[in-house]
């Protein structure tokens, strides 16, 4: 049994009118605008899923795409557990089908970075949202941005028909205590890596999430910003 603690927050930032990011934790869909992180804790041997999705602003209905993705992934949790890449592929096809059937949703697309916690911890990722592994003094990016050198995305869920999606999947073997950071590009594109390294490793998940979003705001928050600080313990490692 594992104990999972997630501090989640998402915000439209200081420039954008709306928030096309979506965050879901344990099936709970975070509101579009939050001023403080929410701390959720679960001790379970069942699989749990944390997803950060960033609807693409240049496409129509980005906020619909990101919400559709996180909801669909949670709804299909058993499929995600069985084969995360295939589950992402189904969401991609469903988004394409939705875009083809309704003109207002044409080409809608989203990034998605999901952290699945079972006996092992699995990351599944498409786009330029990111997942980091964090410990004091050491932060390493676990996902690879699906971008061209100019910054254009090379892979998204949804988008124009005919494009294949090949999610990045990697497993992290279990350990006594692990800290992950999931975030949209509203954080990592504007906040210095050294700041991320320092703030993400704060002892409290809640404090880390709040500090990171504040750093994004201090950097002007030109984009929507979403942060999930996920801490996983083997049961018994920590008592609240």
């Amino acid at each position, binding site marked *: 049994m594992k104990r999972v603690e997630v501090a989640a927050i998402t915000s439209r930032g200081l420039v954008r009118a709306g928030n096309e990011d979506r965050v879901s934790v344990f099936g709970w869909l975070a509101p579009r605008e939050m001023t403080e992180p929410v701390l959720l804790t679960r001790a379970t041997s069942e699989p749990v899923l944390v997803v950060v999705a960033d609807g693409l602003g240049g496409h129509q209905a980005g906020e619909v795409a990101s919400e559709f993705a996180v909801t669909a992934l949670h709804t299909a949790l058993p499929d995600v557990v069985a084969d995360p890449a295939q589950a992402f592929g189904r969401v991609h096809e469903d988004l394409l089908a939705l875009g083809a059937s309704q003109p207002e949703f044409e080409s809608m697309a989203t990034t998605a970075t999901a952290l699945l916690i079972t006996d092992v911890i699995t990351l599944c990722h498409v786009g330029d949202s990111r997942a980091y*592994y964090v410990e*004091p003094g*050491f932060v*390493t990016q676990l996902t690879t941005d699906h971008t061209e050198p100019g910054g254009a995305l090379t892979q998204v869920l949804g988008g124009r028909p005919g494009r294949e999606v090949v999610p990045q999947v990697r497993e992290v073997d279990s350990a006594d205590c692990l800290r992950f950071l999931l975030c949209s590009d509203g954080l990592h594109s504007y906040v210095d890596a050294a700041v991320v390294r320092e703030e993400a490793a704060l002892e409290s998940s809640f404090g880390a999430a709040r500090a990171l979003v504040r750093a994004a705001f201090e950097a002007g928050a030109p984009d929507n910003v979403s942060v999930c600080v996920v801490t996983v313990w083997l049961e018994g490692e920590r008592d609240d």
Partner: protein
Amino acid sequence: MTEPVPRPSTPTVQQGSNPTVAQHGKSVPTVQQGPVAAPRENPETPEFPDQLRDRFEPLAVLGTGTEGVVWRCRTPQGDEIAVKVHWANHKADTALLAHLDRSEFRRHVPQLCGHGSFISPYGPIHWVAIELLEATLDQEIRERFAAGWSAGWALGVLRELAQALHFWQTEVGRNPIDVKPDNWMRRANGQYVVVDFGGVVGFTASQQIGSTTMAARAYTPPEQYWQEKGGPWPWWTLGEIAYQLCTGHMRFQRPNGEMLSDEVINRIRALGELDLTDVADERWRSLISGLLTTDPADRWGWVQVEDWLAGGNPPVAARGHAAAPGRSPITFVDGRMFTDPADLAVAMLDNPHAAERWLTGDGRQVLDTWLKKEELQNRFDVLRLRGATTGSARLHSGVLAFGAAFAPEVTPRYRGRPVDSDGLVAVLAEPDGFEFAGEVVLGDVLGTAGGYRCRHHGCGERCAVLDRAAAELPVLVQDAERIITGSGSGALQSGERERLHGMALLLVLRPDEAARVLRPSPWVRLANVPWWRPLAKQFPSTSTAHGRATLLAQGILQERAALQRPRRETGRFSARGVLRKIGAVVVLWYVMIAAAWVAVVLSNGDLAFNGGPDGERQAATLGASAQMVLALPLMVLAVELVLLVRTRGAVAAGVVSAAALGVALPHLPLFTAASSPDLIASQVTSLAEVWAEGIVVGLVLMTAGGLALASLARSWLPETAPRGVSRWSSNRAVIALMALVALASLFWAAVVLRLMIYSADVSTADPGGYAAFLQSGYLLALAAVAAAIALSGRNTIGTLTVAVPAVLVLAAIAKPLPELRFLWLLFLREPLLSFAGLWGQAAFWAALLVHVPLTVVCVRGIRRAVDA
């Protein structure tokens, strides 16, 4: 008869106008050496085989080498040629020789003037005769640099060698991999030919060439590690020769002429930057860089060398991992900077403490950032460095993994210690070896070390030996722990756990070696410890997983078993205990007498069951008379068994002995020391009368009664022998004396038994006396063995274990040998004969009832003395 060709201690092949036998300081012996003929008294002067004298007249020895001796000879036609006579059993590739014996190959292959073989006392000897050549390239280089180097000369030699390699690979269709300077020879007209065919192979994409390679290490390319013997191989050697043509010395040679160690050569060859500072000419540097390109696929071959010879400048590929020009530097500890991750890996493996200091500081983050910047992150998962600050084992495992990713050619090291298969075995012998093994087993170090290249035959890019060990070890340790816990002896203690890990590691790497250590000695195996006995009864095989786990458990628990082995309880007198023993003796005696009767009746079954009433009576009477004869010996035996065996096992031993004596009684001498008391005799006789009326009923009743009494006797004896503190002296003189008494007594008893069995022997009239006579003759030898036992220290019991059966064998074959008479202690003969004479015709009984028990007492005394 022709003497076999001797082998020199320092091999080198030299052929030329100025022959030399001694190895030159700069020459490099080849790695492989063939079978050796027995050396003659003076190995410096080989003798030309008689079998070849009708073909060739030997003129001089040109040299000796790894394959044989080369002679300058004259043919009957008056031509001078070179004849190479191989070492006995050193095979010659006759198919290759036949292939090379073509005139169209003559340009770069020496002319063959014949080849063949003959039989010597040491095996077949092959010989091959070739044209006489001028000098080796090695000699040529030395002479040229002594006389004055010229660029034209170097260029000419290089062109000649390159053309020769190309010729061999294309025209001859063979790949000469052992083309060090010693194996190039010059004709008088300046042409070079390859003269050593031992390193010539056919072309295959990748060929296993065994655990050793027939090529000089300093001239072999890095792909030797994974034994890929392709076309690029000899071009690397040409690069090394080109370096020598420019500088006059080898690349791996110190200024004082000494060669660097193999380990250093390997590292420089595979990883190090190419140091060409001694090569002044820029074009030659380019040539050498191209030829010494680590990756065989990018290495220069004939096309590039031909272009270079024509004045071109072919591109030089980036050098291995490091070649990335423009790669940004990363700063390790003490300001050391690296641009090549392989160099950084070697630095960390070489300096584990520095690596720990660096990685627990900001090194991890710096490394992560640098790897991502240089797009190397896919070759090493930085999560291997996760948690490095909380556990140095994890950190060093990460360092090992980093080395496997970027420098797999070097020896894997964990915390600075080698963790390849040989290195691990060596580490186990160190004082903290088992502790280290525990970390290796628990930290999946083996699985990571398996990612390094090794030299095992059949291993590819990963070491299959370590991979197999990594897969097997956790299961083996787990199974052994389960067996240990299930034995009921208690959980593993910390020292035992370390020993378990260490021995498990040795068991998967060197099963035979580990099995010798783990198998309990016979004495420990027989230790009367309840939880130990079921485990000790097993003789597991190392060829099955369960067998290895069982063996491991036995090896770990044997020390506990030895410590818990019951000791004699001394110093406490218990009246109840004495009474129980007396009772056990009496009851056991009855049981034995009953067993003897039953055995005698059953052994006369025809009489008892088919002979009618008279037969039954006769059988019953035979049984009764056996009882009377055996009554006293069995009583003595009962006393001895109860006192010596001390456990319930005495009852079973008594029943079996009594039955055996009953059956064998007609063949045994009478026990004349004393006769049964009348009371007993009358009882036995009357019982015989009773049973004569119904022998079957008698058998049933006697058997049932015997079993009931046996059960009673068993209940009065302990299940295990009582423990106590040994009061036996561990003085070596005492041990020697006890050993001598034991061996001499056993010898006498065994000789007597031998004489009883072989009744045709002339000496059976007085077996005791004859045994004493032999005893006096062999007493000195027995005393020497006894002294050896006493001086064996910790191996005393082992030596004794060997000595006892050896004495039995000696007793079985011992004869008076006149030639050894000087060793006989004649002055002891009379006393020994007198002592034996005490037994008279009852020597058999004395052997059984006195000498064998005396041997047991002494052997047990030695064991206690050793324990003490």
